[in-house]
């Protein structure tokens, strides 16, 4: 199910957090409310890690990742990198990329199987993405915008895109991503989807301005109503235990 909350009175929660099926990154805020909101939902399932990237709090937009790995921009400091490596589960590969477009969260939208990237991304970066995240990479635009990471929120079960996306585009993307897509808004009519929410396979977190209509759209497209965290994580645990001696 989807929950609504704020980061320091801002509804753009997707900017300050990154949620995947294996871990959750959270920015360091003035009060602990933000962190505890995530913790209450996810604590016993996946690790919730407080971090900063490149000394900033806008971690959601700077890094891109899924259950296989995490990509951080070149200006991440060594301490942050080390902290991330320590806190995250071992099978998550943390990789720093030398890429001119350093806001990786805005340039890459990915789930566990497929990723959409900014059209101007380097060839090497594309290879690294395919390698580290274990996904198939497609260069695409959404409703004419090249910042695919900002205008779409993706999970393994569905996706929400910019409201002005035409029907042909939706069909095309849907076939590429192999998930159902819907065009909609977040945070009371805002078009920047990924900034306003963050989602994984069983839960979603939205800005507090999100209306009931938008919330119902999100719950239906990401299939959150019947999702139980335990079912999904069980699969992961099995693989985890495998490596345990």
């Amino acid at each position, binding site marked *: 199910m989807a929950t609504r909350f704020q980061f320091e009175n801002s509804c753009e929660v997707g900017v300050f957090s990154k949620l995947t099926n294996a871990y959750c990154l959270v920015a360091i805020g003035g009060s602990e409310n933000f962190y505890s909101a995530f913790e209450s939902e996810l604590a016993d399932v996946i690790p919730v890690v407080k971090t900063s990237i490149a000394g900033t709090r806008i971690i959601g937009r700077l890094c891109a990742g899924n259950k296989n790995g995490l990509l951080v921009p070149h200006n991440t400091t060594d301490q942050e990198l080390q902290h991330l490596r320590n806190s995250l589960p071992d099978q998550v590969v943390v990789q720093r990329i030398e890429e001119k477009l350093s806001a990786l969260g805005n340039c890459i939208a990915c789930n566990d199987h497929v990723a959409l990237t900014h059209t101007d991304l380097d060839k090497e970066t594309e290879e690294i993405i395919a390698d580290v995240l274990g996904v198939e990479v497609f260069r695409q635009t959404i409703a004419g915008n090249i910042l695919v990471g900002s205008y779409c929120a993706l999970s393994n079960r569905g996706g929400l895109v910019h*409201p*002005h*996306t*035409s*029907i*042909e*585009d*939706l069909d095309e993307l849907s076939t590429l991503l192999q998930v159902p897509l819907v*065009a*909609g*808004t977040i945070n*009371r*009519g*805002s*078009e920047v989807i990924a900034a306003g929410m963050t989602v994984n396979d069983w839960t979603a977190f939205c800005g507090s301005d999100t*209306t*009931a*209509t*938008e919330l*119902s*759209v999100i719950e239906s497209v990401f299939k959150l109503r019947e999702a139980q965290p335990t079912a999904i994580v069980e699969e992961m645990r099995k693989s985890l235990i495998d490596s345990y001696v």
Partner: protein
Amino acid sequence: MASNMFVVPQTRGTVLCCKCGISMAPNPANMCVTCLRSEVDITEGLRKHVTIMHCPECDSYLQPPRTWIKAQLESKELLTFCVKRLETDLKKVRLVNAEFIWTEPHSKRLKVKLKVQKEVLNGAILEQSYVVEYVQQDHMCESCTRIQANPDQWVASVQIRQRVTHRRTFFYLEQLILKHDAAVHAIKIKQMDQGIDLFFANRSHAVKFVEFLGKVAPTRSRHDKQLVSHDSKSNNYNYKYTFSVEISPICREDLICLPPKVAASLGNLGPLVICTKVTNNITLLDPLTLRQCFLDTEQYWRHSFKSLLGSRQLVEYDIFNIEVVSPEYNLGGSKYVIADAEVARVSDYGKLFYIRTHLGHLLKPGDRALGYDLYGANSNNIELDKYKGLVLPEAILIKKSYEEKRQKKRGKPRPWKLKSLEMEVDEFRGRGNEQKVESDYEEFLRDLEENPELRFNLSLYRNREYQLSEMVSVSDGDDAPSVPLEELLADLELSEQEDGEDGMRE
């Protein structure tokens, strides 16, 4: 190449309105119009009630600080005025449409529906209409207050006088004033014994009128002022200004005996001259030598002189014989021919006169003419006495007489008519002068018919009451002169005429 590129047709999908969930086309605000309207009110902060001042006397509205605009209910001017009152508000939004909503006139409320557009929420332009209510408060405007307080209140007056026994000049002046709208600002116009008085609310209007007079008649003026009140603190002085304008007593068709000085300065113009035209110059014609001279205003008033005989003293003559003596001369547009004529007065066929006249081109034996009877006149003129040894002609003919032809037309209305100024007639004048005034007016109208150049400066209007059929039956070649129909202006409707009168008084 670009035109051959395959472009995927893009169809816009629908999204759900973020508030109410109904399916709609995506827009910059991503809310359906109703939700957007309920969310944002672009008319917030705009005035919905305004007070305006209205003067019940002259039906005008105050535009602060001081202008009063006259406007009818539900008219374009009133709409412009109402929208202008909201100018500061309408700077924030864009006005698309404005119209009146009918309200009961006695309710003292005006309702205007305005449609405005404004940009809201990341680029969506919202259009909304709202109603502004104007409360009309009655407040008399300054000019009405002044009129109410003292209807005779004037600040400047112009007194025009001409010391002659007839009023022809003033009839002509009246028509000129009407044509040029010179008396538009006059509060009141009064008809006096030998002239007209005009009253103005403003000194500059009076000055303008005096200047206008100076251009159309040979005048001499002086001015005075009288202190009415004085504010010692602010040193404001209120005066009443009076302008006294005297028009020269020389009129058209007058016979004049020039004083020796004037005659000499004009090149020994024969002392007896006829005045042919009066504007701000006086045109003098010597009938015996056909010399024409102009005297302008200054020159006249330097040595002012009176006329010897005026149009009241014209006598009818019967022409028995005409002998043309000279070729046709063209003097300033009019033709004259000198001829010797054998004439006799209609009242006394016994005495025949052999005279020289300048009307040779007009007269034929059997015609009648009007002229001055110098043989029978007993002139008591100083100037005449100064000329020793001057032989006076026995008669001087001035114009052809159409009296017989006019007999046929007597009583029938003319095809044209003139407008008149609204004048107050002084009571004591009315006694016994009615006859004279009417005959004067009749003379004036005849003058207009006979002289196209007189008509030139005036506006004549078609007379609705005149039946055209009668005109056709009486058509000889030798008809009495009348105004050709092309010169007539289509008459104004009666209601418009009333409006026109209102416009003349402030």
